[in-house]
């Protein structure tokens, strides 16, 4: 075969390899988006594997076999989680039953507040017709309650599937992740191999650092909020702090959403403006420390995205995948940024 024929063959083979690689990636992405619970399980598995990977590496450095280290870590985590659930469940159930007892009072308080508001706004009926706030509120509450009860079996089955699938996937990601990545790399054409390898490494490092930093941040916000609410003797402090920690994973919107339940409880309790302010103080302190210390020191160094890019990616994430989309919007955008920057640099190199 002459030089030109080989050149043509190389180009043809590279095209075939590229198509095969892209098709595999599209197939994986489609499976993640279309198969129920797979995307959330996959995201959670990533989080678990990124959290566990430094510990597994540490154990491996100490001389333990990798599989044994992963088994041991999962076993130990299961034991700790079981003990924690056993220890915390009385508190949690206590809080839930307490909440069940006070719930009618909250509903009554809320209805009274709405009635009062309706009376105060009665003069507006001249301009806008009958407002019927109570009826509208009742209508939406009915729909909300109905949908919650209808969705409970589905939510439960989803949670159980995810609770089973996510650790399983995380286990294999830690154990065979590099083998799977190698298999995917073997499909990449030779001329793009080093670029792809470098990209994967950069994204992997950035994702790991980002996930660990965000979880640290969420844990910090949760603990500060808990301590603050406990000091002001606010009811359901652990539950509210846990909720604040979870919602804090969503940039910008999350901290506000996290504060809402406490403010609603305070409002229904009729604490007044001073009470509302005191309730918001723990949340504000947690956010001030987070915004001025944790984000600049820990998070901003990992992901360097402009505020407008963050907001846009949040909107797109929310539109495509709801709350999960908002949580994964930032890491996905930063991975895209790394990819585009590197591919652009590679094209420039190639041209030069």
């Amino acid at each position, binding site marked *: 075969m002459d030089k030109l024929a080989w050149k043509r063959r190389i180009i043809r083979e590279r095209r075939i390899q590229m198509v095969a690689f892209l098709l595999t990636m599209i197939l994986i992405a489609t499976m993640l988006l279309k198969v129920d619970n797979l995307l959330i399980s996959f995201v959670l598995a990533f989080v678990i594997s990124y959290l566990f990977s430094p510990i597994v590496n540490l154990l491996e450095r100490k001389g333990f076999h990798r599989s044994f280290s992963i088994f041991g870590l999962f076993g130990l985590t299961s034991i700790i989680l079981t003990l924690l659930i056993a220890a915390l469940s009385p508190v949690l159930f206590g809080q839930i039953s307490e909440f069940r007892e006070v719930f009618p009072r909250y509903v009554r308080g809320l209805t009274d507040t709405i009635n009062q508001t309706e009376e105060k706004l009665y003069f507006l009926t001249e301009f806008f017709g009958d407002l019927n706030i109570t009826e509208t509120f009742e209508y939406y509450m009915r729909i909300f309650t109905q949908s919650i009860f209808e969705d409970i079996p589905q939510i439960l089955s989803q949670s159980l599937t995810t609770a089973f699938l996510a650790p399983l996937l995380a286990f294999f990601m830690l154990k065979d992740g*590099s083998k799977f990545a190698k298999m995917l790399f*073997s499909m990449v054409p030779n001329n793009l*191999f*080093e670029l792809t390898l470098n990209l994967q490494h950069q994204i992997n490092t950035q994702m790991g650092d980002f996930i660990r930093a965000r979880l640290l941040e969420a844990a910090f916000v949760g603990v500060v909020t808990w301590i603050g609410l406990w000091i002001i003797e606010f009811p359901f402090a652990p539950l509210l702090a846990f909720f604040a920690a979870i919602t804090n994973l969503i940039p910008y919107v999350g901290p506000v959403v996290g504060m809402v339940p406490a403010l609603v409880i305070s409002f229904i309790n009729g604490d007044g403006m001073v009470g509302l302010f005191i309730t918001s103080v723990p949340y504000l302190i947690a956010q001030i420390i987070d915004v001025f210390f944790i984000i600049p020191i820990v998070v901003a160094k990992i992901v360097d995205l402009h505020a407008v890019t963050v907001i846009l990616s949040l909107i797109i994430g929310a539109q495509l995948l709801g709350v999960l989309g908002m949580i994964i919007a930032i890491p996905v955008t930063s991975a895209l940024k790394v990819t585009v920057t590197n591919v652009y640099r590679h094209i420039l190199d190639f041209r030069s």
Partner: protein
Amino acid sequence: MNYLWDNFFRKGQSERTLAHFLKDNFLFEDLTSREINLLMNTIHVRKYRPGEYIFRQGEAGVGMYILSEGNVDIVVEEDRQDEKESDAFVTRLKPGDFFGELALVEQKSRRSASAISCGESTLIGFFKPDLNDLTERSPSTGVKIINKLSEVLGRRLRETTSKITELKRQVDFLKPKKT
């Protein structure tokens, strides 16, 4: 200029298993069989067609390659002003030779020459992210490889210095003497 690229670490191995092949390579000869197994999980085996570029001069480099089967030509592409000079052939590498190792230690490495497969060839790629990962998981393995790598780079530097000195001496000899 050939001997700059000559592999003084070659050991005359042909088709053996990958583990044996790696163990026989100068860079990995100090590794235990457990460490070789760890290394095998990180390396990439790549196949190249005749005339296919392994990398091009000036491209960002991420790691090194060990030639397992076939031959590889190292060429320097020269571009002098407007006229494009033909590529300068540097050397032909044989199985067991390795090249591109500078990319494992340099921060923003650029390939100083192009590597082109001469005939069908199989190469073992070992890259910086893999070396970092290996060092994180088993620091002693990483240190052993880096030590050997330093030795190779030192030898290459000494060879280059000696060659430059020799060339300088020849240039001085050829210079017309002032009367």
